[in-house]
């Protein structure tokens, strides 16, 4: 789980990381307030390329252009806008869980020298202090280890610069293991869900496995592996999924009803593809729910279910086939039309 930068800074302050002062702004008005309130003399902005500001939909690059225009005006405070590269670069540190080697790994560059070594899960294992591996780096790595250990982190990335003669961290990237959230409730509380769509947030409340995507076909699958394969299959067939809803091995009728409602509430969804397999999913509620769905929505629905003969009779208006490629062709064709 990605922890928003402002939240990550709050969490990591306790470990004594030397962060540069930081604020999140999403409108020009907020920028003005921030500059006045904190009497900022110089500022760095980090607009991600092509990104949009969550919930507002405004381009980050556009906002930066607005800020630059504003700062050129007479009434604006005298602020030196700098790029991150204007500060002398010291290095980058990544402390991460390396899946391929099944261990923690510290890697990055420090004053032009690259380093990479594995570390035991219980701590220790840092190389002795040398000229190439100075105390400042060791101290940051030790702090990173403590933070990763305490918060069950998967990745901690630190970007280090020099401000005057002091070592500072200009950017931080932090991911934690969402599977450990039950033991670290503070992360869940601090995590602002602006990276989740409304549908994902609702689905989370019902403990449904829902992922919003960029396409226009809402997919219901019975298993994560099948879900990944189905997205690949849709791509091959020229389609794109708007959401992937994994109903897993079993689901109650009420929950299936909610799941379909969530899927339909996404304005991107222009068609629904249900791909459920026997053994994994018992489809006794499916007929009822799909009939309800047909009554409410005019979207094309394609069902891939191996007990298709039984379903065909019950759902005359829905395309039901055993063959996966025929189903993919049908739903992609229906949506594109």
């Amino acid at each position: 789980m990605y922890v928003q930068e402002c939240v990550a800074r709050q969490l990591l302050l306790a470990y004594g990381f030397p962060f540069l002062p930081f604020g999140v702004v999403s409108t020009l008005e907020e920028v003005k307030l921030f500059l006045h309130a904190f009497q900022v003399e110089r500022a760095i902005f980090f607009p991600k390329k092509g990104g949009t500001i969550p919930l507002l939909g405004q381009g980050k690059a556009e906002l930066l252009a607005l800020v630059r225009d504003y700062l050129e005006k007479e009434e604006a405070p005298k602020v030196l806008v700098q790029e991150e590269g204007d500060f002398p670069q010291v290095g980058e540190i990544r402390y991460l869980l390396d899946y391929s080697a099944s261990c923690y790994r510290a890697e990055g560059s420090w004053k032009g020298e690259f380093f990479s070594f594995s570390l035991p899960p219980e701590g220790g294992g840092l190389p002795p202090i040398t000229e190439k591996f100075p105390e400042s780096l060791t101290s940051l790595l030790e702090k990173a280890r403590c933070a990763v250990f305490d918060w069950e982190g998967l990745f901690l990335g630190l970007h280090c610069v020099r401000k005057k003669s002091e070592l500072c961290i200009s950017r931080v990237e932090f991911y934690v293991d969402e599977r450990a959230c039950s033991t670290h409730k503070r992360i869940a509380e601090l995590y602002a869900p602006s990276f989740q769509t409304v549908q994902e947030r609702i689905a989370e409340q019902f403990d449904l496995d829902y992922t919003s995507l960029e396409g226009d076909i809402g997919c219901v699958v019975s298993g994560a592996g099948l879900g990944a394969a189905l997205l690949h299959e849709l791509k091959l067939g020229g389609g794109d999924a708007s959401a992937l809803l994994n109903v897993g091995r079993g689901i109650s009728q009420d929950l299936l009803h909610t799941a379909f409602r969530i899927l339909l509430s996404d304005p991107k969804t222009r068609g629904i593809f249900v791909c459920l397999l026997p053994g994994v999913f018992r489809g006794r509620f499916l007929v009822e729910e799909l009939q309800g769905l047909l009554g409410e929505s005019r979207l094309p629905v394609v069902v891939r279910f191996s007990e298709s003969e039984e379903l065909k009779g019950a759902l005359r208006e829905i395309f039901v086939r055993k063959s996966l490629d025929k189903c993919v062709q049908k739903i992609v064709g229906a949506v594109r039309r």
Partner: protein
Amino acid sequence: MSGFFDRHTPFLVQDIWGDFAHFHTRRCQEYGTNIVGGIAPRARRAHFCGIPLFSSVKEAKSEVKCAATMIFTPPRQAKQALLDAIAAQIPLIVCCTEGIARRDMLFVKEALKKSTSCLIGPSAAGLISPGEALAGLLPIDLYKAGSLGVISSSGSLACELLVQLQERQIGVSTHISFGSDELLGSSFADLAPKFEQDSATQAILFLGEEVDAMDVMWERYLAMRRSKPLGVYIAKKDFVSYAQFSKEDPFCSHSRVDSLLEKSGIAKIESLSCLGDLAAQLLKENTC
């Protein structure tokens, strides 16, 4: 089969007391699996559905002969259950628990390095030798005994294959679904040699999803001595999850995997719809 297990292999079930474990233990037992004991530390009775209960794996091992264990323990307690099974030197451990914290798995993998146990999972759907025995959650109705060995990361992906195999009347010698977590006890490269040794398996099919460092796994497998035709399907992930944070191009290893497979003459298909045809082609190759 099997290099892994058969109807005589004595199994333990850890955390047998839970509803989920109970349901699946009954299914396995009805299918023919030899379940000799259950671990339920807080149970106040000696038997559960005719299976003797023990308070720990160590105690069970001293009381009954056991060669394998199935773990259905909830994720927060799963690390301890796995470490207990490894400490008791159970040769085959099948862990069906989903959602074990990644750091917990680091400790488990450390323990595995010093042991001879083979861990399948976590989040494994299990393994089955059709007509012989079942350990896990796999859908028994879809299997027919035959000569195709199947290794898959995900259970649901394998169901897709089974539906297509049913249509073509193709049977399976053994199927292992080893899970799709990032930190697994065994990967395809660890499991494939058992299929190579198995006389009932004529061809092997691997179904998986893209994971980090997949090229390393394939290099390891291709360096082994191989005698049976192998077919591969790898689902590409179209969206980036948190797990790929540290890589600029998360699937940079994919094209390398493609070229490795191509160089070795391994049949690889792009579409899920062709799984059945690939299986038929592999079995035919072996017969020729």
